[in-house]
């Protein structure tokens, strides 16, 4: 039991969760997540580019400024070189307050700026910019240094330039802050726009649903109106309409079927109730009572027949298939049925001619029932010519066809279409004869379906032809039936030419 019980809730829980999210909300969320990811990547890349560009720019600036001093220190021949260099640095510092200069050497004359010694130790010997706090630890500087080897006028010196690091750091910080603030905002905006787009994009679905609801209200033959829908939904709507068509047909069939069943059953039931009431309302003799009981029994037999036939049709419709299939000759089986109907045909002054033959794989009792119903139908509805003709043949290697034709008044195409419907009678006046309750051809159709076959009806030259198609038997064993040529000669039903079925002991 737990094994059965457990998976159900775990399976249904996520279903429920995902169902509660609308498509628009899901799309908006996905847009937002995508936006955050893309903006973050773009931001990181831009930040790096900006960082490198700023670094490059700063370096160019510093190197440019150092170049003048370098030139002075490398080419100056004046004995006051040290003081002239210091004066120039002081000059330059005054001109640009964000820049500072330092000079360091073992010779105390060639020293300039506070904390030059410490910087000289920290500065990168390979000429890379380094950020270093000043002597007081207040400001930090981006520092670039240059080693100038000793020449004949002066000792080796280390020249250093520092630019306020705060400006660039501040720029980068601002940029980062802006990115971090803008990314979620942009993501939110994308989500909102995404939601809006989704809502607009899904509008046709809403229309579709509204259309479907419109159809639901009055269950007539209404269909989805296709032109209002975009191309993507056309197929869906067309399939939906086709499904509606099928449902509608089935529904109508069911409705008429129910009405017909009610009608068919009501009459005999009402007869029995009435007769029984009449006979019980007075004191009656045995003969009268027997008469009513017998009449009731006849009605009950009719009811039994209808119910049994309806059960048979219901089982066929539920997909029951023929079983115990054997290969038989259609002409042979038709011959037996004609033999069965011999006296009825004789009474009606009718003849049956059979042409051709084919082997079929069938459940024999079902085939006989179908052929019997077909022949009975032909006999009942023959008008004019007293000849019923049966043509048997192979349509292709796989299908055998038996077509039975009788002379008839013209039947409208509408009537022909309904010929195999249950309780359908071409002449609408329901003749209450016990022989026919309008299920005969429906049963023929069901039997064909049980063999994966089909039935068709056609009308030409005053003849109505009903054909049943059944799967042909593959080249059967010799002697399993008469050869087709052997039966091509018309067989007259009035001859008693079949072996007698002797009663069982």
């Amino acid at each position, binding site marked *: 039991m737990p094994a059965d019980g457990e998976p159900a809730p775990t399976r249904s829980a996520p279903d429920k969760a995902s169902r509660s999210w609308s498509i628009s909300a899901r799309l908006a969320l996905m847009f937002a997540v995508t936006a955050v990811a893309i903006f973050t990547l773009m931001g990181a890349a831009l930040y790096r580019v900006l960082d490198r560009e700023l670094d490059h720019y700063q370096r160019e600036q510093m190197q440019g400024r150092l170049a003048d001093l370098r030139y002075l220190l490398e080419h100056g021949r004046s004995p006051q070189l040290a003081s002239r260099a210091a004066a120039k640095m002081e000059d330059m510092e005054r001109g640009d307050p964000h820049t500072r200069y330092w000079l360091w050497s073992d010779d105390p004359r060639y020293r300039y700026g506070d904390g030059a010694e410490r910087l000289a130790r920290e500065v990168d010997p390979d000429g890379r910019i380094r950020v270093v706090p000043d002597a007081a630890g207040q400001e930090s500087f981006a520092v670039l240094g240059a080693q100038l080897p000793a020449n004949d006028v002066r000792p080796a010196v280390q020249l250093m330039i520092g630019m306020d690091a705060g400006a660039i750091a501040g720029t980068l910080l601002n940029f980062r802050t802006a990115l971090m603030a803008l990314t979620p905002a942009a993501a939110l905006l994308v989500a909102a726009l995404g939601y809006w787009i989704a809502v607009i994009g899904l509008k046709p679905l809403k229309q579709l649903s509204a259309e479907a609801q419109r159809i639901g209200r009055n269950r007539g033959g209404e269909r989805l109106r296709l032109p209002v829908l975009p191309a993507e939904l056309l197929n869906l709507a067309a399939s939906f309409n086709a499904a509606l068509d099928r449902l509608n047909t089935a529904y109508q069939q069911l409705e008429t079927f129910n009405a017909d069943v009610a009608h068919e059953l009501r009459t005999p039931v009402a007869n029995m109730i009435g007769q029984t009431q009449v006979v019980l309302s007075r004191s009656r003799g045995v003969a009268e009572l027997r008469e009513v009981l*017998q009449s009731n029994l006849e009605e009950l037999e009719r009811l039994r027949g209808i119910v049994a036939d309806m059960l048979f049709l219901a089982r066929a419709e539920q997909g029951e298939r023929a079983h115990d299939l054997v290969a038989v000759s259609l002409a042979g089986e038709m011959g037996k049925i004609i033999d069965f*109907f011999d*006296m009825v045909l004789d009474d009606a002054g009718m003849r049956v001619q059979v042409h051709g033959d084919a082997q079929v794989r069938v459940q024999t009792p079902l085939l006989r029932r179908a052929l019997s119903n077909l022949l009975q139908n032909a006999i009942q509805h023959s008008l004019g010519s007293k000849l019923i003709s049966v043509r048997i043949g192979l349509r292709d290697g796989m299908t055998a066809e038996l077509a039975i034709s009788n002379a008839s008044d013209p039947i409208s195409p509408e009537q022909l279409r309904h010929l195999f419907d249950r309780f359908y009678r071409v002449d609408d006046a329901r003749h209450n004869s016990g022989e026919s309750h309008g299920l005969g051809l429906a049963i023929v159709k069901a039997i064909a379906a049980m063999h994966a076959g089909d039935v068709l009806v056609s009308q030409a030259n005053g003849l109505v032809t009903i054909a049943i198609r059944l799967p042909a038997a593959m080249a059967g064993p010799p002697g399993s039936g008469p050869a087709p040529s052997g039966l091509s000669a018309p067989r007259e039903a009035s001859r008693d030419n079949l072996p*007698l079925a002797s*009663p069982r*002991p």
Partner: protein
Amino acid sequence: MKVLIIEDERKIADYLCQGLTEQGWTVDVAHDGIDGQHLAVHYDFDVIVLDVMLPGLNGFDILRSLRAVKGTPVIMLTARDGVEDRVRGLREGADDYLVKPFSFIELQARLQALTRRGRAQEQTLLRVGDLAIDLIRRKVTRAGQRIDLTAKEFALLELLARRQGEILSKTAIAELVWDMNFDSNTNVVEVAVKRLRAKVDLPFGTPLLHTIRGMGYTLEERDAS
């Protein structure tokens, strides 16, 4: 003839008991599987009517324990007309089966067939009143007068005469004379009986071939009434 009915539905058991008793059978009834098995195994019957769905023990169980000790003919009543039940019943030793709902005459015919089976002595001449049927020369005479019948008319008359006094339904006649074992909804049997009656009864005044409305036909000599 003794028959045991093992059937838990009271209404069916009651009408079977009444109907068969009136037809001259000695009837015992068991309403559940346990009683039914006890009676079937410990007493001798000519035939047993056995329902498949029973409280206590089901029909197949009873059939198995019965077949372990004796071969009394058994006719099974199956509620569903599923092929499996019939096949299973016949495989496990049932002699015949009927699908519920069934008609009483149908059951009666099957019971008679089962009990007749043992003592099949082939008759060559059948007599019903002043009607004589020579089965070997296939000749029919009534009151000494020759009657010409077609093969099918003869087969029908032979069937009715072999079962004289017994009611034969149209379905049974269609099956036994024409080998058509399906609900045919045709009037073939009526037409055949009408023709037979025209030859066998009409010229002679007293009818032998009787219609039992709603049930079928029977051939017997009746007092004029």
